[in-house]
């Protein structure tokens, strides 16, 4: 297993209820890793990314403990055996 995704409870309806999804490929960047995730579970895509392919405003993506916002965004490199967490941001929810 090269990369493990942590899926938040609100998105598990689109991953057959799975809280973790493993990707066998070795993606170089977060963008590549997400494309591999979309290929397995297409329903996740629209909830995490905008039509332009950017991470939605109220979603945070972490490689390990680092928020990719501070490490190069979608171009952030993904080390072997990395854990990528998708988490709803505290800025989200109903106003």
């Amino acid at each position, binding site marked *: 297993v090269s990369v493990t995704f942590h899926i938040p409870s*609100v998105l598990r309806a689109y991953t057959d209820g799975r809280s973790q999804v493993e990707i066998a490929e070795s993606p170089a960047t977060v963008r590549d890793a997400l494309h591999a995730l979309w290929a397995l579970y297409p329903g996740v895509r629209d909830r995490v990314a905008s039509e332009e392919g950017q991470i939605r405003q109220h979603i945070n993506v972490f490689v*390990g403990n680092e928020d990719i916002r501070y490490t190069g965004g979608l171009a952030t490199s993904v080390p072997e055996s990395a854990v990528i967490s998708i988490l709803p941001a505290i*800025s989200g929810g109903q*106003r």
Partner: protein
Amino acid sequence: VEPAALFESRNGGETWELVRGLFDHSHRPRWVPGNGGLCLHTILPDPTNRERMYVALSAGGTYRTEDGGKSWRACNRGIRVEFMPEKYPEFGQCVHKVVMHPSRPDRLFLQHHWGLYRSDDAAETWKDIGNGVASDFGFAMVMHPRNPDCVYILPVESDEFRCTPEGRLRVYRTRNAGASWQALTRGLPQKGAYETILRDGMTSDSLDPLGIYFGTRSGQLYGSTDEGKTWKRILEGLPSIVCVKSATIGQPRAPRKPEANRKRTVASKRITRKRITAKTKIRRGGRK
């Protein structure tokens, strides 16, 4: 204020100066905005120590100074975050509210973005006290002015659904510093009441027995004049309520001691007094 910053005045509010010790903090680039923006919302000076003060910000966490604001340290040990991969980080907590009792300033109660906490050591460590509440998500938190074991909260369901759980409007009270909580519902709607109560939407007065008041985003003002035992709707039809403050008008009449030969009916007659409701700060279309 938003973005999170603290200002200080040494001349009674004539002029204000940015507190650089906090503004230039090395954590600042990693603070992130909550639903209401990146705000510093709580300021708690220690009444027994002029050099010590706490602030809370979303998100950020709780910070404490011991040198009158020159330096600040994150004080969030034990506060769990659900929204980051690291569950107990040094900072990054989305603290919604912190309250302190002036007679016991080393004890603090805290409402987090998920989680109710108490500290007994001036915010060095925090202990989860969300025992038996309908939800440990929420914003408003009020300290009883005379009892350092008594705190009122108004839980909302979740960050995704920021309304009172199960459509029941319930204030919760602890009288044993969070060991247990009691739902206070008499006079509050318990069906279809999907209300949102914001961070500064609940307050108390200073009378005995204590009065508690809160306002909803749907523009309703509720109050209790018996420490939360019974409630009444005071006003409705207001714009979205973001902040409730109380003021006592006139002198409340002191309770008279019943004389030995007075008839029981007279002795138990309700003591009348002037109560608050005066200052309800309202902002149209306000955000939290």
